[in-house]
């Protein structure tokens, strides 16, 4: 069985180039010449944690608004121009970042960079557009409302983060979305959609010179703008002193979530926490499923996830159940399984499976230019180094049973724990 496998890959030392334009825009470039295509992504260092507390969902609005017309591109024309050359596009809002991406044949590098530079500063924030996007975002939010698990996670985040904006989800909230005026969005846009707050990532079958020229041509003239405020910097989550437990309004299915505060993405421990999440809840044969569904037969689902953020994040274990009296038992099972990791060493096979699955998932993602660019953008924004991900697969594979015990001992303690029980029987 493979323990620590050094990946003998050309990719282990790819030639990533980075530079900064005078206006502060960071550019990261990697030449990949397998197929004649290029992906152009802009990663903005803005996410739901930068939103005003009463205007949650502001960041998410842009994910859609950015396709709906700038001074020089009519609504939807950006997406159409990309689609018509066989390209594909994407956009996503998270807690710390918002990114925009398109992948096109390499001949259209300049067009893609031009379109991204244009919408960085020239978005036309019109009332009609805002209203239409608001409806769309509210519709997406209803997706959260319609899912007992997503709703429970939303509620749990509010309990676990008493002060930090990670207490709310990027999806947005109807009452805040209704409150948003075009002028609020314009202010948000002018604050965060600036070259000094973004990283342009280009990966594909293009040369560095072409990328430098296109970046300078289209982004160069943009104004740097003032340093954006970081509301989360003054909203650090206070250190928890004792266990928190709350029984909240009933849910259509019973849901229990146990969560522990964890360190930020910069910490080495996040790799161990992801391995732990896989051991506890990666799939059908993992520990929480075995315990809750198979052995104790107290619920129908068990899982776990490590939320890795720029600021300190959260590890949570979750169980779903039907029988009203099972709530406490599920909570106990979740806590016990997490705390057991601090006492008993994980078996070698179980650990190896978790490490392998994470590393394989990671490696598979590196096959596409989009996947490579996303790793670079994410690394650049979350830990300040677009090369950090290069060692991720090795870091997963290097996690030992001692690491698991140490990390479990450090974080899975009662004074760091929040438990939420949403009993079954609630309406939809």
């Amino acid at each position, binding site marked *: 069985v493979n323990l620590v496998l050094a990946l003998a*890959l050309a990719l282990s030392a790819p030639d990533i180039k980075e530079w900064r334009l005078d206006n502060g825009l960071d550019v990261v470039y990697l030449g*990949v010449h*397998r*197929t*004649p*295509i290029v992906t152009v992504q802009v990663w903005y260092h803005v996410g739901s944690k930068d939103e005003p507390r009463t205007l949650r969902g502001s960041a998410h609005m842009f994910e859609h608004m950015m*396709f709906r017309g700038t001074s*020089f591109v*009519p*609504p939807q024309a950006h997406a*159409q121009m990309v*689609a*018509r*050359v*066989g*390209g*594909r596009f*994407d956009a996503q809002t*998270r*807690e710390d970042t918002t990114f925009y991406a398109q*992948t*096109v*044949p390499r*001949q*259209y590098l300049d*067009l893609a960079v*031009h379109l991204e530079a244009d919408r960085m500063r020239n978005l*036309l*924030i*019109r*009332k*009609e557009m805002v209203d239409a996007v608001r409806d769309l975002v509210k519709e997406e939010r209803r997706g959260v409302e319609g*899912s007992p*698990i*997503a709703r429970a*996670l939303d509620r749990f985040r509010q309990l676990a983060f008493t002060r930090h904006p990670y207490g709310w*989800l990027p*999806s947005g909230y109807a009452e805040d979305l209704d409150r948003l005026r*075009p002028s609020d969005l*314009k202010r948000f846009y002018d604050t965060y959609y600036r070259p000094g707050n973004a990283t342009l990532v280009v990966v594909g*079958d293009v040369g560095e010179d072409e990328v430098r020229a296109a970046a300078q041509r289209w982004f160069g003239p943009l104004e740097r703008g003032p340093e954006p405020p970081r509301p989360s910097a003054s909203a650090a989550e206070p250190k928890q002193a004792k266990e928190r437990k709350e029984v909240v309004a009933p849910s259509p299915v019973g849901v229990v979530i146990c969560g522990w505060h964890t360190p930020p993405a910069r910490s080495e421990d996040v790799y161990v926490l*992801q391995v732990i999440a896989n051991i506890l*809840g990666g799939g059908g044969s993992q520990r929480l499923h075995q315990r809750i569904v198979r052995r104790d037969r107290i619920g*129908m689902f068990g*899982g776990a*996830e490590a939320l*890795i953020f720029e600021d300190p994040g959260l590890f949570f274990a979750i169980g779903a159940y039907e029988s009203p009296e099972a709530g406490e038992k599920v909570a106990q099972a979740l806590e016990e399984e997490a705390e057991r990791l601090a006492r008993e060493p994980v078996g070698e096979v179980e650990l190896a*499976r978790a490490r*392998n699955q*994470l*590393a*394989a*998932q*990671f*490696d*598979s993602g590196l*096959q596409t230019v989009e996947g490579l660019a996303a790793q670079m953008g*994410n690394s650049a924004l979350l830990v300040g180094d677009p090369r950090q991900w290069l060692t*991720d697969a090795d870091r997963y594979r290097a996690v030992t049973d001692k690491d698991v015990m140490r990390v479990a001992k450090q974080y899975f303690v009662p004074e760091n724990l929040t438990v939420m029980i949403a009993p*079954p029987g609630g309406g939809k």
Partner: protein
Amino acid sequence: VRATGLLLALVACGGVDRSRPTVVTAAPSSQPASAPAAPEDLPTKGDPWKGRADLIVPPPPAKPAPVALPPVVRFTLPDGLRVLVVASHDLPVVTMHLAVGAGGLDEPKGKRSLSDFAAAMLTQGTPRHSSDEIADTMSFVGGSLFAQADLESTHVVCQVVATEVGACTALLPEVVATPTFPKPAVKAVADELLAALKRQRENGASLAGVHLLNLLWGEGNVRGWPHTAEQVAAVTREDLVAWHRQRFVPANAVLAVVGDVDPDRLRAELGRAFAVWRAGAAPARKGYPEPKLRGLSIRLVDKPDQAQAQIAVGGLGIAHRDPDYRAALLANAVLGGGGSSRLAGLLRARTTSELERWKARGMFHAETATGNGEAVATLRILLGEIARLRQSGPTADELAAAKSYLAGRYVIDLQTAADVAGALVVAELHGLGDGYVRDFPVALDGVPLDDAKAAARKHLDADNLAVVIVGKADEVAAGLDGAGLTYARVGWQEPVSPRARPPRLPVDETKTAVGRKLLDEALAAKGGADRLRAVKDLHAVGKVRLQLGDREVTGAWDLIAAPPDRRRVAMKLGGQTLVLTVAGDAAWQQSGAQVQDMPEEIARQERAALWHDHDFVLLRHLDSGTIVQAAGTETVEGKGYATVLVRAADGSNQVKIFLDPETHFISRLTYPQYGGTAVEDYADYRKVGGIWFPYRQRAAGGTQTIEVTLGDLQVNAGVPPGSFDKPK
């Protein structure tokens, strides 16, 4: 640092992501961008982009570049297996893709699911490993191994990180060469296939596709034979073993390996691993006559719950090897297969057209959806555009756009090891070679306008097409009748194949008279119409036995019925009580504390079940307009029964009643369900309140059976209060 990833598991439990991506694919909006009015932040009114010369416009389409595919190393293993290797060291993974020439085209008429069935069974066990062990091995290394059949081949694909290539080298040959087809897995796979078939028939768009295949290819071609539940249920382990033995031989297969591998080492390892594979020759693929289409052949499939009508249009296409293939592909892209196609511009709903890509001649087909009332108008637009394209072909600009779209799409979709392996396998199977993969974008770009026009003229036959419309038939029929179009109308639950459908009723006055007489006798024997009509409620309790594939459960049965439209069945199975209730328009199911509305299709089935309920079906022929036909004598287990077909006036329900010649009691009911036939058997009649009720009841369909043995039955004892109230 990896982004979070539990959410897949959560989705299985009903969860959704926290921050959903908006747009993932490049399908452009088919609706014209709405012109904004009075923008708040702009001095201009109306359309701020209209008439402007300074907007960003895309550059003219650029010359496509070839794919930088590394050299393909080819060798043949001692057993005759052809292998293609692309050693691509900058990919951190390996994909092995093996294709065997065993697909839907090879299936015998009565077993149209054999290729899918056998593919699903490959990973269910070998002499050396159980299915759990195979799954565990792949899960341990974070890889995947799956098999799937299509029209021409069975594909077995293994993907792992490069360091774990040994898992694929060991397991892929094993599952391909030595599957054991364990019996328990046969039942489980049958259930999965039946469930998939059921989903396919319930979805309007996929149902349209099923009917289009049947209508276009007809009964004389394997592609026209629909898959049915009976055929899935009829597949035995012996069929699977024989299928594998005949067709899964090295000479009938090709293997592509792409990723970070050393070809020499791989060759040695594959040689050892595939040594277990028995050599031999596969039988030649059977040829079928191509269908001859004359004019428009229209089939209207009545599915009254369709808010929108689904329209599918199809004709014969061309083979992948045909010299016209690229030109025809470009013409199709202009019509409805591209980023800015004509159909997408003309029709509001998502409309696409596709030219199939098979070694054999495939088909050309187009799909759209529209309001039931507009179905015929939409069909006219669709057919009109096909005719126009055929007549004048694409313009130079359209052709350039289509080239740019298809070439771009091709290279963007050719990134992963799996993408490359799949493309190589197809090129090899179709006899095109790896140069085809490398040069496809460039070759596409070289197609002259005249060729594209000629291809449109030759291969888009707008006059001779098969058309299927799935929708509210009454609304759609009005349009078809108004347009003077002839069509065949069928119910969505009826068999797809016209040959399997019961003959149209009414057909014969004598048979009506004979049938009605039989039903009158049966009704009198039952206890008479008056007594039956006086039944306000029924309460029956007893035992139930359910057989679901290889699983069997038994429990208690409790039925309360209040004719004509309310029925509540409670089954206590193990520790759980399952309650199914239909009360007029409402239908719900309750499992433990969970209450949910039945899916609309299930609810419709339940309401249909009320119509042909065995205790009251003998009143149906007294309903106005009901069609009755005596259907002769049928023998069941050595005994002859008089049979009568009864069909509701609106055609919505139909049942065949088998009557015992001595007692005149109902012995069997059959009716169409999910493209197959459901069978209900009745016995042990006992008299309660002057009416004879069967105490033994059995229903079967697919691999599922339900048996009920009544212990007690009460008539007009009153319905317990709240029986039909939906729990809060």
